[in-house]
């Protein structure tokens, strides 16, 4: 029988309720009262030990339900739950149901022998009969989200919206909102109705942050001005995409893993050794002179404006350079950082300090930005806390601009003997460091999948994270070394150890150098098969890296990053010139260009998809293009025209069956006629290929292969669809392995279909860059892999060591025994290590 505990500030209330239940429901319910403080518990209050005792009194393997009144009763009950967990493992639920009604409803369920879940549900429903009788049902707290319901237009020019964003209106969505409203003449005021904060003008990031809009809060926009209708449309658009959060959170693959241990963890491979330099050391010392009077204050503020302007210019140009190489989430973080630089409230607050507290510009700027960073750090949301680094970075950027020319920071030897120690590697910091000789980055916090981390790997900049617990030792150390692949950290290693580390560093560097020097050569296996190792790319920078690392071609050019920068539908000309610019470095080499692949899970500002319950199963890829015929035509025309200067293969995303290819080919024919009549240079026919990323396409690969010129496996999506495991869900990481035998088996017929028709079939998912996977992919008959550019040299080197025919034989023997991804990996490991089967 489930036990019941009632907690009230008033012992008498708790006991009287127990009495009520015993008399109305039955005397044999297992129930205990807790509450009251003081010697005879006659004073009002609650006490966790008392609650713990009550729980233990009614404990049962069926579980215990605790109901409480408010305030400290909740905190004490939670504390009691912690305490009790040391001696009791029976299930225990704290429930928000109203004390009297809830406990009676629960007792009724307990008496008929229901389980803990039913008892809890009954308690939560406890108010319903009374509400129905009195006809005062409370408004449903969170109606299921539909787009209509999200917008409750209030009178005239007001708009009330419930915020769905997981982290509320944090930096990024707030920045999106400010940017979107900037062009309008209408003034827009925002008020947080739930928290009763505001109204404020929708102009300052800081003001918006102070509204403290959290998930579930109602906010009200008041809009007034000549173009208020358009402004409302803009706001509506933002609400649809949860202020741009949808796009970014879908792009957050793999999810931000927040490591739970205090141990350092690997971030970016490579061994680094050097003198630790803290980021603050690069921040100039804050001058302490006072600003005596108004004229002096004016000069200070002019200096500050100058510095902010310079910082903004530098920031913008770096940002423009980076934006196409970064995923949407990072781009929007950078956008938000730029808005911090422009924030009127910050400027006003700084001005206030300079005028009235007589602080100099650097001091005032430092104080305000530090305060904002700390405010950010204090929130309980892990994700938001991490954003404090954004404020710190902007603080440093401007302080660096503020200092006199003569005291510009110089890194000794350009950092050649140094390691940078910072809170978290941000993308722009990674970029700055990329141009110095700094050996590596030691992050005190920072996750392995943060965007700085991804960039560090692309720059081959060694890094580890999670070193916070060692910070004091690092501060005192003369030398620090770490292994970015294993996550090992050495502080002041002995001379012998240091020599070993340096030797290991030299060895891994020269192995890479060796691989790099060979990487322009074709990759031929031991048994003479030519394997095409291509690079994935999404921007001009990626294309350059592909060249640098010796990729044979571009095996997957993703269009999404390039298109991310457009706020409105780009014209055909605009699309053409964007592609031309990105591909220019690659000359006439082969590029497999994937048509724009967007959908509800990764929307672009100009092509929004109505809300879908299940965007991964929604209007994506070719489906979306077909549903937007106008844009689709301009897109396909741009691609045909691009094919004049580059050797282009056209890859079609999210194919379900061959009819889509038939339809697309017809459309291309039609557009070809159009272009001919307009006398625009273009190329048709061009090779068309299908992405094999839906199970359907894999199963029907035979028919699909008959309608196209090549196939390409998108293993990331295929894996999530075959294993029914959403790829962004960290709880499902276990299933995020394309080497799962179910995935390999579904690929097999498609590989055979391609071989039968003598067309090429490639793999362009992450799995191609995984050394353990390479022998298996080749063993299955694949001859084309497209990988991260920086991985090309090592993958080519690996391929040259493999004897594919022997691997294939061994794999065929073993294939039917594979039941899990681990089985497959064991096999791959065996081959890559010393197994005589693959490598001699």
């Amino acid at each position, binding site marked *: 029988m489930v036990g019941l505990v009632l907690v009230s500030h008033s012992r008498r209330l708790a006991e009287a309720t127990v009495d009520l239940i015993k008399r109305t429901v039955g005397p044999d319910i297992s129930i205990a009262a807790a509450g009251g403080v003081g010697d005879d518990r006659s004073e009002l209050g609650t006490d966790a030990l008392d609650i713990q005792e009550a729980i233990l009194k009614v404990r049962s393997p069926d579980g215990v339900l605790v109901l409480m009144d408010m305030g*400290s009763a909740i905190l004490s009950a939670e504390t009691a739950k912690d305490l009790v967990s040391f001696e009791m493992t029976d299930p225990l639920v704290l429930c928000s149901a109203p004390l009297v009604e809830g406990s009676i409803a629960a007792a009724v369920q307990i008496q008929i022998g229901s389980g803990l879940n039913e008892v809890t549900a009954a308690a939560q429903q406890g108010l319903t009969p009374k509400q129905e009788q009195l006809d005062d049902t409370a408004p449903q707290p969170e109606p299921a989200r539909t787009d209509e319901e999200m917008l409750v237009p209030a009178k005239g020019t007001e708009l009330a919206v419930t915020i769905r964003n997981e982290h509320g209106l944090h930096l990024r969505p707030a920045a999106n909102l400010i940017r979107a409203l900037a062009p309008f003449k209408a003034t827009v005021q925002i008020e947080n109705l739930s928290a009763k904060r505001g109204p404020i003008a929708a102009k300052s990031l800081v003001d918006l942050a102070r509204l403290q809009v959290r998930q579930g809060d109602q906010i009200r926009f008041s809009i007034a001005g000549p173009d208020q209708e358009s402004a409302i449309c803009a706001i509506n658009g933002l609400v649809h995409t949860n202020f741009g959060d949808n796009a970014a959170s879908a792009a957050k693959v793999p999810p931000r893993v927040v490591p739970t241990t205090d141990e350092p963890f690997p971030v970016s491979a490579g061994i680094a050794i050097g003198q630790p330099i803290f980021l603050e050391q690069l921040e100039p010392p804050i001058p302490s002179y006072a600003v005596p009077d108004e004229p002096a204050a004016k000069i200070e503020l002019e200096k500050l404006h100058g510095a902010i302007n310079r910082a903004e210019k530098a920031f913008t140009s770096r940002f423009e350079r980076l934006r196409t190489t970064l995923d949407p989430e990072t781009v929007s973080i950078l956008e938000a950082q730029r808005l911090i630089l422009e924030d009127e409230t910050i400027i006003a607050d700084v001005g206030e300090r300079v005028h009235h507290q007589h602080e100099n510009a650097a001091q005032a700027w430092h104080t305000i930005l530090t305060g904002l960073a700390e405010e950010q750090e204090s929130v309980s949301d892990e994700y938001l806390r991490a954003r404090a680094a954004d404020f710190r970075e902007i603080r440093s950027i401007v302080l660096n601009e503020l200092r006199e020319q003569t005291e510009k920071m110089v890194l000794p030897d350009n950092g050649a003997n140094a390691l940078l120690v910072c809170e978290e590697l941000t993308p722009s910091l990674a970029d700055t460091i990329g141009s110095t000789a700094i050996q590596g980055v030691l992050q005190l916090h920072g996750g392995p999948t943060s965007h700085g981390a991804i960039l560090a790997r692309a720059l081959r900049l060694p890094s580890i994270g999670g070193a916070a617990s060692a910070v004091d030792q690092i501060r005192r150390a003369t030398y620090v070394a770490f292994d970015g692949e294993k996550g090992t950290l050495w502080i002041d290693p002995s001379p012998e150890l240091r020599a070993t580390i340096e030797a290991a560093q030299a060895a891994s560097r020269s192995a890479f150098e060796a691989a790099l020097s060979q990487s322009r050569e074709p990759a031929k296996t031991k048994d003479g098969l030519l394997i095409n190792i291509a690079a994935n790319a999404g921007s001009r920078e990626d294309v350059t890296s592909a060249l640098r690392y010796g990729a044979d071609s571009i095996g997957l050019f993703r269009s999404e990053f390039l298109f991310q920068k457009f706020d409105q539908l780009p014209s055909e000309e605009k699309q053409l010139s964007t592609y031309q610019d990105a591909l220019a470095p690659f000359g006439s080499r082969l590029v497999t260009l994937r048509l724009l692949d967007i959908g509800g899970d990764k929307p672009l500002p100009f092509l929004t998809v109505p809300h879908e319950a299940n965007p991964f199963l929604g209007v994506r890829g070719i489906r979306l293009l077909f549903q937007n015929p106008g844009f689709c035509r301009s897109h396909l025309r741009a691609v045909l025209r691009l094919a004049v200067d580059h050797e282009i293969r056209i890859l079609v995303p999210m194919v379900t069956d061959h009819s889509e290819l038939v339809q697309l080919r017809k459309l291309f024919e039609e557009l070809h006629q159009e272009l001919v009549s307009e006398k625009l240079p273009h190329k048709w026919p061009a090779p068309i290929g299908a992405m094999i990323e839906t199970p359907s396409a894999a199963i029907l690969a035979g028919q699909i292969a008959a309608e196209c010129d090549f196939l390409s496996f998108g293993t990331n999506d295929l894996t999530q669809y075959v294993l029914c495991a959403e790829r962004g869900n960290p709880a499902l990481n276990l299933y995020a392995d394309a080497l799962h035998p179910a995935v390999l088996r579904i690929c097999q017929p498609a590989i055979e279909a391609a071989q039968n028709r003598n067309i090429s079939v490639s793999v362009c998912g992450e799995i191609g860059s995984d050394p353990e996977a390479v022998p298996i992919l080749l063993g299955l008959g694949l001859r084309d892999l497209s990988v991260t550019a920086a991985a090309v040299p090592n993958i080519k080197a690996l391929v040259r060591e493999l004897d594919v025919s022997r691997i294939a034989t061994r794999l065929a023997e073993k294939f039917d025994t594979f039941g899990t991804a681990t089985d497959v990996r064991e096999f791959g490991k065996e081959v890559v290590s010393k197994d005589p089967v693959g490598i001699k």
Partner: protein
Amino acid sequence: MTTITADQIIAWIERYSIRIAEQKEFLTKLDSDIGDADHGANMNRGFQAVLAKKAELQGKDIGALLKIVAMTLISTVGGAAGALYGTFFLQASNVTAGKTELTPEEFVLVLEKGLAGIVLRGKAAIGDKTMVDALHPAVKACRRAIAANESLDQALAEAVAAAEAGLQSTIPLMARRGRASYLGERSVNHQDPGATSTFFLFECAAETLTGKQ
């Protein structure tokens, strides 16, 4: 290097218990403006119970004595402050288990763990008008000072100043946590009682932990 001994920790707790007794009326007055007029009484009940156990505290290592303080508070204070300060000292006791003295770094860690415990338990953020508004800046100030190799004296002085500033910041705020949150707008223009008792905690630390008793 300066260290903090178990005896100093006891002196800190004792000094704080006395301060609470002295300020009981004041804390209760603050709580009567925005709460239920019991914060002073609650805290005093708890810390008098702690004082009564002084003999038991002596001779114990820091982790063990803080644990006694924590459990005593949890079982006697009665209000939200019981669970919250109790959690603070319980977390503090976890990181000091077996230690008979603390370096300044270790002491900051104690504060940080305690803060984390309170935030985890009460889910309050800065600006919610709670003790966190005083505690968070104080802990941060202390961390910054120690990391910059300033003396413990200096660090604690900065922590007190930060706690005071944090306390002042609660005046214009509207409560979002705890019982005061039921008052909504009415809680504006009053100083938060919990933030006030937290400020005293740092004041007493500065008086007892740095050798200039």
